[in-house]
């Protein structure tokens, strides 16, 4: 109880501080965040008034961010003691421990010894083993001070007691001042659970443009389609359009190139990336169908929206636009385009997407969006938050290190890109690129997971991206429709049996419906009754109760 009061007070103070820093706006709107400022680091952020929270004067850290006397003392104390504590930092990538990990750890330590009085040891594991290894390490109490909870799961981590509450002993207020400036408020406190502050989202796009369609330019040119005139504004990355237009394009593509697959979508992403529906609490068994306005948990699968999207997919599939192998495919969309077997696929939109997808597909891609919804779901900020391990020996140092990761461009560059002159070099126009003789396959530190890093916004920008991509992203984040349930997580351990059964039922029907292999008119009622048998109503009720309680605690009516 005490903690919760503190949380409310703190939030209020923070908001006040930020308003002072940015000058305008009201606290309820989504446009008053200093995210845009943080892109350019030192100069602007330094101007924020900041640090009244802990009652100290106008103190600044090495990067010009507000700090507190406690923080300065803690650093001094560690430096005076002569032996720096080593903090272990864990995150995941796609290819496993990179060769240069020791060297980069060393480089990071050089910087943190100077600024914080700590050493850093990175532990980078690949996606396949990360959740498993992390669970084992956390369960066995091995040293792992700071880690990203991606794929381990934020909610299970909270439930099992793996995470340190940053409200405890005012940890965040005293040592996390920089983060409070950098991360927009509406996203910063999204990982407060039951009055405990357990995680901080990474700086990334916090929402997605729904129902994006990416089509290879060469095929559009092949059918002579005039897409250039369809852009609304100069410099738009994607074209706003509708379902019928896309269907028409697909039809022409199919006629002209009958041997190629027209369209593909990654399995299990159709609802999440095409519909403004919030999988509140982390699953679709009870969803928010009108997430911007209502906190009522409803059944997605019996809704008209779901029927409609399944019908659309069914129509495309029956017209022959899908591969017959879609149900079992493991290739992925972009390699298939690259190989020349696929012409279009669905993707989530965000600033920089055009460059990214063109790069992955090895050819220029044209992006479309059906509708114009940019949506930020309630789980946006807890899919990959940075967390402090509850068993860490030195929570203060861990908090300060995390703070530095969010605010220090030197550290961010090392984490994101490796060492300058070894992995990467600066180009004349302000981008960075591979160092001479280095490429993706032989680089000793090329993780390609910057969205998982605490703050990629302050790192240098890779060649091929716009230099203002992070400003655009910040604007994008502001404009996203944010779910009312943002920050809610659901402890479903009391209804775990229902959850297990529901997951198995959904697996049985999901792909056949969402990839349009079966007539939804026929199959959805069948799935509905199976879900009911598996306890959908019990589960939804439990979720609604938890959501109501959460809404009450957080003043969301």
């Amino acid at each position: 109880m005490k903690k919760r009061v503190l949380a409310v007070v703190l939030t209020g103070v923070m908001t006040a501080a930020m308003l002072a820093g940015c000058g305008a706006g009201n606290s309820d709107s989504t446009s008053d965040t200093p995210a845009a400022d943080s892109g350019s680091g030192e100069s602007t952020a330094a101007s924020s008034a900041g640090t009244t929270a802990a009652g100290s004067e106008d103190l600044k850290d090495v990067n010009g961010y507000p700090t507190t006397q406690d923080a300065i003392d803690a650093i001094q104390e560690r430096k005076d003691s002569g032996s720096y504590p080593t903090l272990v930092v864990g995150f995941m990538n796609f290819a496993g421990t990179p060769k240069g990990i020791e060297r980069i750890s060393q480089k990071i330590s050089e910087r943190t010894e100077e600024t914080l009085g700590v050493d850093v040891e990175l532990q980078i594991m690949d996606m396949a083993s990360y959740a498993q290894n992390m669970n084992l390490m956390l369960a066995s109490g091995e040293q792992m001070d700071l880690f990203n909870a991606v794929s381990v799961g934020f909610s299970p981590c909270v439930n099992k007691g793996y995470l340190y509450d940053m409200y405890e002993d005012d940890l965040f207020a005293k040592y996390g001042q920089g983060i409070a400036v950098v991360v927009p408020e509406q996203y910063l406190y999204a990982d407060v659970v039951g009055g405990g502050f357990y995680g901080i989202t990474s700086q990334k796009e916090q929402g997605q443009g729904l129902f994006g369609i990416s089509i290879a330019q060469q095929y559009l040119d092949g059918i002579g389609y005039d897409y250039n005139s369809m852009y609304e504004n100069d410099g738009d990355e994607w074209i706003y359009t509708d379902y019928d237009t896309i269907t028409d394009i697909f039809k022409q593509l199919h006629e002209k190139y009958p041997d190629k697959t027209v369209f593909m979508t990654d399995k299990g992403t159709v609802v999440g990336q095409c519909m403004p529906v919030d999988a509140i609490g982390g699953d679709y068994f009870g969803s928010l169908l009108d997430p911007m306005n209502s906190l009522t948990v409803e059944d997605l699968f019996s809704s008209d929206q779901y029927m409609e999207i399944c019908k659309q997919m069914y129509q495309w599939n029956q017209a022959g636009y899908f591969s017959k192998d879609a149900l079992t495919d493991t290739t992925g969309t972009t390699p298939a385009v690259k190989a020349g077997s696929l012409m279009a696929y669905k993707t989530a939109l965000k600033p920089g997407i055009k460059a990214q997808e063109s790069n992955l597909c090895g050819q220029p891609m044209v992006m479309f969006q059906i509708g114009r919804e940019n949506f930020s779901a309630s789980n946006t900020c807890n899919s990959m938050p940075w967390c402090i391990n509850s068993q860490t020996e030195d929570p203060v140092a861990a908090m300060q290190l995390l703070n530095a990761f969010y605010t220090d461009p030197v550290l961010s560059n090392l984490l994101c890109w490796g060492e300058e002159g070894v992995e990467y070099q600066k180009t004349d126009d302000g981008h960075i690129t591979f160092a001479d003789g280095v490429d993706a396959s032989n680089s000793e530190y090329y993780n390609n997971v910057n969205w998982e890093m605490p703050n990629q916004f302050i790192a240098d920008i890779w060649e091929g991206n716009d230099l203002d991509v992070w400003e655009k992203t910040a604007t994008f984040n502001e404009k996203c429709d944010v779910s009312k349930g943002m920050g809610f997580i659901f402890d479903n351990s009391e209804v775990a049996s229902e959850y297990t059964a529901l997951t198995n039922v959904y697996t049985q029907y999901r792909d056949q419906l969402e990839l349009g292999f079966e007539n939804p008119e026929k199959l959805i009622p069948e799935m509905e009754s199976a879900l009911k048998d598996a306890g959908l109503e019990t589960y939804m009720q439990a979720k609604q109760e938890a959501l109501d309680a959460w809404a009450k605690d957080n003043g969301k009516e």
Partner: protein
Amino acid sequence: MNNKNIRSERRFQIFGNIVMIIISLCAVIPLILMVISSFTDNDALIRDGYSFTPHKWSVYAYTYIFSSGNSVPHAYMISIVLTLVGTAVGLTITTLLAYALSRRFLPGRGVLTFIVFFTMLFNGGLVPTYINYTTVFGIKNTFLALLVPSLMLNAFNVLMMKSYFVTGIPDEIMEAAYIDGANEFQAFFRVALPLAKPIVATIALFIGIGYWNDWMNGYIYLTKRTDLYSVQNLLNRMIQNIQALTQNASTVSQATQGLATIPSVSVRMAMAVVGVLPIVIVYPFIQNNFVKGITLGGVKG
């Protein structure tokens, strides 16, 4: 031997060969497909699917495996050393334990057998086992982590071998050895062991395959020392990552980026070929032991 016998023998040989040829074809055809796929151009694989007669051949998969920083030769070394050491140690303790359990006069034999058998059914589970090996024995990120956990000895092999010792070695032969003044160790080494050659070779093969094919130990216990990865660890890391990426595409929207960077279909097949090849080469040598086993059996009779 009369004519009827010879005719029945010949008929059996023809029948047997036909059956074995059919079964062998069943076993080998998919593997041929695997080898061909590994030599197929990757884009052709994605476009046309797997085929016995690909439109475009390519050795890209192998150049990728052996050139890019994957250090397959190094992983081979690890795999070979691991398999040799593991098989030697594992076979020794398995054989000794199995022999002990086969001695009928041994007091407490039933209890001991049960203790062994019990481990086939119950185990503490992954987390307690992990805690045991990392915190009590501290073998995480060492070579021992590949060698020791779960692979060295298992109840199945012990009981198989024990049963062979019980049924395949007549008590009279052992008694004769004792009468000749042999002690237990001598009886074991001079009499029991040579007679048990077929099963020893079989269990050696099982343990060896177990070590060669294992990726679980590396997956769990090697989080930093990627230089200790065996061939199977490399192979499985790639495959598991692809699996994880396709599964998590819904939760981590960035997963698709990862999919694009991971080596493709033909490389997976080539890795499988690279993983299986050594056993194909080594197996005939192990088979010689079966042959020797037969001759010994003949002498015995």
